[in-house]
């Protein structure tokens, strides 16, 4: 059987039954997604690496706490988000107040840098980084990870209507930031 075609649920079940191979495949499947999420949230490669490491160590030790009915991917991103918040709480990168701030949607202090070679992707990545954390996480979980509104609400411990609102405001902010280049 081709083990890479197994669903998350099947790998989780293998892993829970003591087969480390299942865990190892889950690590391979999600390592880059989790690292990219942590990196885009923290904008610091060392902290992102630590948060990613802690996320997968928790996966190895706390997989039994994954409740039935919750998708593994949502659970893993919840763990990663908690690790990001731990870094934030330690005040290493940004303060918790700034993380939770929903009054401003994006950083308007400086315009997006433009270089002749810069492509829309670079500008887009930079614009996403400018979104305030509370908006950035919802936007990435939807647009990059494809989580449903309900799953994002689970991961970010908020409501579906708050998620809808954050996604709309994030998109409006990105439109505003990128309008000169469209």
């Amino acid at each position: 059987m081709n083990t890479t075609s197994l669903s998350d649920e099947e790998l989780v079940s293998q892993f829970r039954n003591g087969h480390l191979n299942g865990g190892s495949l889950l690590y391979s499947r999600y390592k880059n997604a989790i690292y990219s999420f942590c990196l885009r949230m923290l904008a610091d490669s060392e902290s992102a690496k630590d948060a990613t490491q802690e996320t997968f160590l928790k996966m190895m030790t706390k997989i039994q706490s994954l409740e039935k009915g919750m998708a593994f991917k949502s659970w893993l991103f919840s763990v990663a988000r908690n690790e990001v918040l731990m870094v934030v709480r330690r005040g290493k990168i940004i303060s918790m107040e700034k993380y939770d701030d929903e009054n401003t949607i994006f950083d308007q202090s400086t315009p997006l840098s433009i270089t002749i070679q810069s492509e829309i992707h670079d500008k887009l990545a930079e614009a996403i980084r400018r979104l305030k954390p509370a908006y950035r996480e919802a936007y990435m979980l939807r647009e990059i990870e494809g989580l449903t509104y309900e799953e994002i609400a689970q991961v970010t411990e908020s409501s579906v209507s708050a998620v809808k609102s954050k996604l709309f405001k994030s998109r409006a902010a990105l439109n505003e930031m990128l309008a000169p280049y469209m």
Partner: protein
Amino acid sequence: MDCQTSKEYISQFLDNELPQELLQPLFRHLADCGECRTFFVHTKSIHDSVKKLEYVPVPESLDQKFAVLGMEEKKVSVLFKNNFVSIPTAILSVIFAFMISILIFFSLDASTSPSAFSSINQQALGAFSYSMMQQPIHLQ
């Protein structure tokens, strides 16, 4: 429909989360409103571009750490899962088979032909290998 509501609906439409009954009012508004049409086109363009953003690969040092925690075991399981034996069982089996071979060799009469020895030895090892194959997997 006002422009604010229309833009909120556009966001939900791109997520395939806009209820069916709101599609017609939204597109009727878009037909009449240039501002919302521009918002739609730009938002859709960003929505399509963001899907092409690539993941940043995890640092190699992290891969190495997890290789020690997980992949070693994986190699072990791949190596032994087809033989249905665990490592200690395999080692003990080899030692045991060697001892049996020695015993058979010394207990045989000097006149025994090499082919008879070879046949007994193969039978003993064959039976032993079969018993090994019956054991369940126990990764240590």
